[in-house]
């Protein structure tokens, strides 16, 4: 072996390690490697001497009991008592009161701002409907709703007459009919109007003759909600024809505008818009004698009559996509109503248009 190869074992020998025989033999007869061993040994001895000159370290007594985790220290501190000046405590209490009242003021302010009165009427059977009345539409801010209630069809018409501060003057009409009879907003409009002073936040009781007591509440909002009516689901129910705030266009001309009125009908029933000047437009999920099939796309019912293009634009989707809709226009239809929007069984409101059901014959 050569000295270079043995050098590492010289170092190991210095550490008291056993080395290979060949390396040991080489070191035994090599003066250079022996000199290296002496140097390594001398260096180690010198290092230990230097270390021995080091002054003694004063081992400070440490209190190991206090060496706890930050979490446990915080936990213990959290349960400890604290003294604060009375002024500081009074200031904290004052700050809580001020902040609390500020939040309450913000809440009140949010409810008292806005120009739209969102009314919720809870019928005597517990069901409810909503309507949105914008003060900018006074005196025409009005909504109507027709719906079943305790075995009857009950209609409500609510009109926003005036506003003074947070208080409003409301005109309310209610009417009830048997479910089989034709029923329209016109019927409701014919009933006497009762005037109420109403302030959002309070509950108003409405006596519906022969049916029961309905309750009305309200709040101010800064916008007209998407669904002010009783329906909150975007999709109509299966087999439901839903018409909310309809606007009827003939070409580019507005034929009828029933903003705020809403109702729905199922198969065998119809929804109509009537005025003495235009006649009656009857919409149904059932085919009718003389009716045309309409095209429905979301909130639009498009149809043609005598070469003219008509579109009902409503405030929400009208039917499910697989439902077919028919429209019958009776130009010469006459009624005592001045202007109506309503629904009813086809057998009652348009008996001559009913197509006899032949499926049960034979």
């Amino acid at each position, binding site marked *: 072996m050569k000295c270079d190869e043995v050098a590492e074992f010289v*170092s190991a020998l210095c550490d008291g390690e056993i080395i290979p025989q060949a390396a040991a033999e080489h070191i035994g007869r090599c003066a250079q490697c022996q000199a290296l061993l002496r140097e390594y040994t001398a*260096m180690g001895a010198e290092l230990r001497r*230097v270390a021995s000159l080091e002054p003694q370290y004063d081992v400070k007594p*440490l209190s*190991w009991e206090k060496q706890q985790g930050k979490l446990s220290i915080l936990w213990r501190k959290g349960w400890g008592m604290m003294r604060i000046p009375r002024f500081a405590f009074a200031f904290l209490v004052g700050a809580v009161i001020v902040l609390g009242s500020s939040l309450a003021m913000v809440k009140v302010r949010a409810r008292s701002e806005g120009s739209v009165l969102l009314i919720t009427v809870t019928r005597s059977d517990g069901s409810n409907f909503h309507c949105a009345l914008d003060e900018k539409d006074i005196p025409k801010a009005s909504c109507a709703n027709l719906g079943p209630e305790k075995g009857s069809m009950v209609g409500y018409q609510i009109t926003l007459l005036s506003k003074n501060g947070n208080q409003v003057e409301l005109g309310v009409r209610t009417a009830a009919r048997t479910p089989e009879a034709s029923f329209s907003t016109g019927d409701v409009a014919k009933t006497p109007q009762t005037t109420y002073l109403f302030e959002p936040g309070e509950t108003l009781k409405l006596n519906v003759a022969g049916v029961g007591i309905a309750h009305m509440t309200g709040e101010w909002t800064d916008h007209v909600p998407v669904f002010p009516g009783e329906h909150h689901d975007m999709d109509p129910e299966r087999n439901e024809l839903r018409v909310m705030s309809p606007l009827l266009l003939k070409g580019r001309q507005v034929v009828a505008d029933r903003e705020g009125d809403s109702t729905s009908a199922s198969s065998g029933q119809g929804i109509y818009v009537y005025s003495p000047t235009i006649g009656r437009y009857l919409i149904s999920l059932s085919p009718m004698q003389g009716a045309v099939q309409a095209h429905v796309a979301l909130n639009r019912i498009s149809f043609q009559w005598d070469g003219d293009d008509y579109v009902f634009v409503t405030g929400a989707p009208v039917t499910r996509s697989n439902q077919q809709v028919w429209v019958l226009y009776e130009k010469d239809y006459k009624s005592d109503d001045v202007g109506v929007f309503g629904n009813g069984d086809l057998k009652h409101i348009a008996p001559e248009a009913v197509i006899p059901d032949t499926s049960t014959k034979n």
Partner: protein
Amino acid sequence: MADDQNLWKRIADGDIEAFDRFYRENAQSLYRFFRHMVGNVSVAEDLTQETFVEIWKRPQGVDPERGSLRAYLFGVARKKASEWWRTRKPTDGLDEAEQACDSSETASIVGDAFARLPAEQRMLLWLREVEGQSYMELASVFDVPVGTVRSRLFAAREALRRIWHRAHDKEGAAHEVR
């Protein structure tokens, strides 16, 4: 090793008396190690205390099967010293370190040469020559195989010897000029 395991079990169970004994037995050598690694008395004191506190707070960090308690202690210390060197500004503590090396009590050509070695070689050589740690313990401290310990010790000794010879030659030349 059995005593080591027994002691460590008591420390892991929160036996204050056992840990305090461990602290008193090893604080001096740990301080001396830091003193020569960082060259600053107050830093060495701080690091000594930090090392013991860290072990006391996390006794589960040790695995008695892998090495002795002292090896674990110096393993933590080695990391602390390396960390200190990494975060140290270039001039921090330099004066005091130099002063310590040049003090009359510790004046030594080997000592000066030792101070010029890279930190890892200094730690290795110190733990072997001064603390007398075995190859197994050093392997645990530096987390390397035993064979690597042997070759690194040789490299450190050779580096120290070269520096020592250069310094010795310069000193001889200076005497001749006079």
